[in-house]
């Protein structure tokens, strides 16, 4: 696993990390998807009779959840966003690194979502819609609720300015 040195943060102050509260959200969310491993384990146990169908899914589920939580924590650490004059930027992942840029002039509309857990931790998910096809909705989970609102207002203001012309 490489560290941040591989991707020189081209202005460290610019990239905003997610608030520490979001860490639990990431871990929980990824752990939940890790539980899915229990399904194949059950099928495996039934088809081979090597392990008891009672034990296999439980063990696989726990392993999956732990693995998921670990990945979630890593992904939380590698996620960052940036808003500047050019628009919104969002990066995620170390092993599979992705950086998405949505220029402010290309924002179509914005959604702000608060799930039950997010509300509890004062977090929000911002979805930025563009007219594109593959990246028509760029969604950022685990933002601080106030940050998300500020982001939405900033990007929406740009939208109004464009339409007025």
């Amino acid at each position: 696993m490489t560290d941040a040195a591989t991707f020189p943060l081209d202005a460290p102050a610019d990239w905003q990390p997610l608030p520490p509260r979001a860490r639990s959200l990431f871990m929980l969310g990824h752990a939940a998807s890790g539980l899915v491993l229990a399904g194949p384990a059950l099928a495996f146990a039934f088809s081979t009779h090597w392990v008891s169908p009672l034990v296999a899914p439980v063990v696989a589920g726990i392993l999956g959840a732990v693995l998921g939580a670990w990945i979630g924590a890593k992904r939380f650490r590698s996620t960052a966003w940036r808003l500047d004059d050019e628009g919104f930027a969002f990066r995620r992942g170390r092993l599979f690194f992705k950086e998405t840029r949505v220029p402010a002039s290309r924002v179509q509309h914005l959604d702000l979502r608060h799930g039950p857990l997010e509300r509890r931790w004062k977090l929000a998910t911002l979805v930025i819609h563009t007219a594109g096809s593959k990246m028509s909705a760029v969604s950022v989970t685990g933002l601080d609720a106030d940050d998300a609102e500020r982001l939405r207002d900033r990007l929406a203001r740009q939208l109004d300015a464009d339409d007025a012309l």
Partner: protein
Amino acid sequence: MTPSEPVGPDAGPQADPVPATSPAPNDRRLHPWSWLFVLLQQLRQFIVPLIAAFFVGGDRNELWPLIGVAVLTLSSVMQYLTYRYAIGRDAITIRSGWLHRQRREIPFARIHNVSVDQTVLHRLFGVAEVRLESAGGQKPEAQMRVLRMDDALALERLVRHRGAVEATVEGVAEPAPDVLLEMPLGEVLRLGIISNRGVLVLATAYAASMQFSPRLVGGLFEHWSRVVFGWTSEHHFGPMQYGLAAVTLALAVLALMRLLSIVLAVLQYAGFRLTEDQQRLTVERGLLGRARSSVSRRRLQAWTLHEGLLHRLLKRRSLHVDTAASVSQGNGQQRRALRELAPIATPDACDALIEHLLPPDANWSGLDWLPMHPSSALRIFLGGAWFPLVVTAALCWQFGAYGLLALLWLPWSAYLAHHHAKCARYAINDRIVAVRGGWWSRHWRFAELDKLQALRLSCGPLDRRWGMATLWLDTAGATPGGTPLRIPHLPEAEARELLDRLARILAARKLRW
């Protein structure tokens, strides 16, 4: 059939806002026969249950299908009676529905694509089906089934002028549109040879035959064997003869497929004509049924120039373009939005068309094509190497050591990767960005910088090993399964620089679509 363009006043290329005459909301109806076409459309959806009810119903009441048809007819007539449209100064208003009423305003400025389609039946009645499509969405904004042909063309012209011209006013004849591309019969036949539409028909026929009589294909094979070897040796077919029969049958099927493709190409593309009239492109095509769709030149999003193996043998290429409205894919009607600028044309004709339609400073033929990362061949090879390995493992598990033969696939894929990496190029200037890819089957994908919507840089574990990154450029209206606009395997520093540069350019330019 050449469209007898009904005459109308010339509004000039930039439809200037006319003084507010605020026409009275004069409601119009569809063609009086329109209920018949709505009924036929609905019958097509219910035809299977209806036939099933008719034949399988047996001892039960045979009137059920008739009642069904009667209900559908009634609903079609009601639909005709309640559907009104009115053309305002800058929008078209459509009111429809009886119990559940709907009123929809479609501003002319929001309409991206207008299509006027005629089947054979439509032509007998002298009517056409009109669809107005805006960006995005799965369904057209308005679907008028059906209008009189001249009304349909008038409506199309109205949208072209953004409603500045009253459709009914007869005036000065419009200047004849410039013909950008025409396909004579020879070209249509070439298109048929290249295209694989026949496969679809045969596949559908095969699926249908399995549905209705599963033994048909086996029976066909037996019958073919008899035809080939005569009736005498009917009972003594050796493996040799079966093999021969299989090979000849395969050849016959291939020939049939080509023939079907050619027939379909003639049916769909005969009389293909791409015209340009006041910044608006119109494509007309079809032998029996005519399809006509038009789109404003500035609505074109990303372009694809394609040259497959057969294309190259016949010295032709094909040119497609995405429009924001072309995402809408109705059941089997996905081709209605203007997509094919040149179904088939010589490379020179394609280049001329691109030069003509892109902004003058795009400099398509003078692009400076840059190579990818020097190790991109290795990256492409390793990125795809897992598949032969998995296949080998699976085969070894099944058949033992013989499965190792599948490893022979690896040198071949290395050879392919080498050529793909050698052919891949990209080019960028102040106006457009273009990517070239493929080796046997080549493609060029390009878009104006103004039409880019979002950017993404991605970098996986393999990329990191050699310091590469891939740049994804997103445009509107790209088909999900189509060639993406992406610059693969760039040196990472170059990719970052390009990402920053593009982000800066996009932020400075307003979205125009």
